[in-house]
């Protein structure tokens, strides 16, 4: 089974990485193989949504719906890290759980390796779970306190009926070593470990079957700063070594910047901006992204007071009854009438940079979405002309 899968992937990898990178044994080679990110999408999410019904009365009739996720589309390429950021309640975790099929989507489509898994039965999903794994936020509640580390990390082998070459114990010990734990920890229980070590156990379990895609839901937010950095570095090393693809869900913008190649910003169940890391953090287009970035406290007292701040008023509206059209218009300082009437679509305003706003910032494109759509091509041409003007 696994040999078939790798065989299917090899042509793609070799085509893009050259013949040298085909042997995944040497870590240095694996590092050079990073450009594989431009490769084919491993995961595609199309107009995905989840509405949780709110029922009332004797007959439990549905009276409303919490629109936790309301139509998000993105794709994750092989070998890259996509960060999903947003405030609590924006639907980032729900999205992650739907990708894992831990929640059934209300609508939309999830494609993993070219296969539609949206409606796949649990029975048919099971073999796929080898390739699709999750890291949970809380290292205290995600490990069974009655099981030893060996049993926890070995569980995937048992559940998938996989015979490891030198026995499951040996395989588990190798994984423990890979994530920086001592193989002798095999017979210990989770309570004997610190938070950071527990998160490593969780990561070891995730890695047990060498998955292709890992959805990490707030992987470091429960950890102390110094330990957080260890786990972030570990995730990056593992990606280089094992050619993993991550979807990292987090609320900490600086962690997301550090770890992601591309970042999607969510607000009230929608993606409002999706761009390359550098692009998003240096030239945010959506006002919400701007506000989020300016709200992050900067650990440098000399910049106190110098920074231009955008202070959002109030709280995120309820997803039970989200504002019409642009969902951010109730808190947006740039909002005009059109924002209350027409929903801005998520469009590509510069190469690889999508934003859903009628009045995006940091771009030559502006005004309504029709103009924006039409202007994508001219804008690219117009920018150099502007630059050359001062020279002349």
């Amino acid at each position, binding site marked *: 089974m696994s040999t078939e899968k790798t065989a299917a992937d090899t042509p793609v990898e070799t085509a893009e990485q050259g013949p040298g990178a085909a042997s995944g044994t040497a870590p240095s080679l694996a590092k050079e193989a990073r450009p594989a990110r431009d490769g084919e999408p491993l995961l595609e999410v199309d107009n995905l949504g989840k509405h949780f019904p709110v029922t009332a009365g004797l007959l439990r009739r549905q009276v409303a719906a919490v629109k936790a996720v309301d139509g998000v589309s993105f794709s994750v390429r092989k070998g890259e890290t996509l960060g999903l950021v947003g405030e609590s309640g924006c639907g980032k975790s729900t999205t992650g759980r739907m990708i894992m099929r831990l929640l059934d989507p209300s609508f939309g489509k999830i494609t993993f390796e070219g296969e539609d898994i949206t409606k796949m039965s649990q029975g048919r999903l099971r073999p796929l779970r080898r390739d699709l794994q999750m890291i949970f936020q809380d290292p205290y509640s995600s490990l069974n306190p009655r099981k030893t580390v060996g049993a926890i990390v070995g569980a995937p082998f048992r559940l998938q009926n996989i015979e490891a070459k030198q026995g499951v114990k040996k395989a588990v010990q190798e994984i423990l070593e890979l994530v920086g734990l001592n193989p002798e920890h095999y017979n210990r229980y989770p309570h004997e470990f610190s938070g950071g070590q527990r998160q490593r156990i969780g990561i070891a379990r995730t890695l047990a079957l060498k998955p292709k895609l890992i959805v990490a839901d707030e992987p470091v937010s429960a950890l102390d700063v110094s330990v*957080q*950095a260890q786990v972030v570095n570990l995730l990056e090393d593992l990606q280089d070594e094992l050619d993993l693809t991550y979807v990292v869900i987090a*609320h900490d913008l*600086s962690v997301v910047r550090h770890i992601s190649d591309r970042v999607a910003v969510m607000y009230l169940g929608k993606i409002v901006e999706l761009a390359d890391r550098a692009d998003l953090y240096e030239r945010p287009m959506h006002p919400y992204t701007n506000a989020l970035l300016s709200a992050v*406290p900067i650990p440098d*007292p000399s910049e106190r007071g110098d920074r231009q701040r955008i202070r959002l008023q109030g*709280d995120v509206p309820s997803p039970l009854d989200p504002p019409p059209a642009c969902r951010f218009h109730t808190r947006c300082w740039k909002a005009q009438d059109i924002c209350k009437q027409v929903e801005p679509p998520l469009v590509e305003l510069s190469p690889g940079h999508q934003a859903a706003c009628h009045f995006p910032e940091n771009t030559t494109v502006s005004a309504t979405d029709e103009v924006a759509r039409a202007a994508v091509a001219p804008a690219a041409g117009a920018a150099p002309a502007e630059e050359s003007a001062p020279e002349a």
Partner: protein
Amino acid sequence: MARKRQAELVNDTGETAAGRGAPTAFLEVRDLKIHFPTDDGLVKSVDGLSFKLERGSTLGIVGESGSGKSVTSLGILGLHNRGNANVSGEIWLDGTELVGASQNEVRRLRGRKMSMIFQDPLSSMHPFYTVGKQIIEAYRVHNDVSKQVARKHAIDMLGRVGIPKPDQRVDDYPHQFSGGMRQRAMIAMALSCDPELLIADEPTTALDVTVQAQILDLIRDLQQEFNSAIIMITHDLGVVAELSDDILVMYAGRCAEYASVEDAFHRPLHPYTWGLLGSMPRLDRERSERLMPIKGTPPSLINVPEGCAFNPRCAYCDLTGGKSTTERPELLEVEPGHKAACHLSLEKRREIWDSEIRPKL
């Protein structure tokens, strides 16, 4: 140099020995020790902490979980059960000593002279009573006023912390408030008696960044209005950099470094502070390829390492010729207003900071 430091050391201890009596600072904590006897051994949560704080200024206490930050703040408020916590040392608040004071004396001060904002407003407010009722209760304990006056005051406070339609929201229950609003209500409650000392224990950790920014602004504004002294306890160095005047870095129940906010971020002199700064991904810098974590994990407070508590995790502990593993470093004033507890020579530390740490941040 060595002799000068020796002199300072004598001066330091001499002062604490001779300086019994009311201090001049608004809040002064002297050699505070809070130990918890447990079946596994004595947990030394706070083990000899001293600091001063004036009105109108803010002290940021940073450290990882289990470093004793919250235990310190609960100790100042006298919230430890004296049956299972051994508290020693002195806490002077505006001329009153609190460690030796009776429960009743402390209770009179708590809420009025000093109050606290807790981390999790959902679990620190009573779910059964309305927000207004809880603020009214806190106010009436210390002020002999009628319910109507107290209610008016509660509405006034809720409005002051930025809750819309306070006259209606005052009758809401905590669960009807969002996280940010609950924290505002908590702040309103803490400020209802115009406390002179406000302790904020991770006031924004449970909140989203945009709400965190609002709350930090609010705390800053209220401080200017009331001229309170604030102790800001957090693990987020960004929050500390925004709000504090001085920073106290705690490690394993002791002060590792004490400095002005400028010095702490631009000229830190303790390897643990370097480690904290290196562990954080920062938005205001070029993205570094790798973070520089501190190896290992925070120590157990039952078995604090011999010598310098940080030595098993310190990258520079070999440079002290074994001193770090045998002898506990004293907290010495290395520059005016800048104290650090480290065996490395000051020159060496400056050199390491300039050549190895700062360029990588």
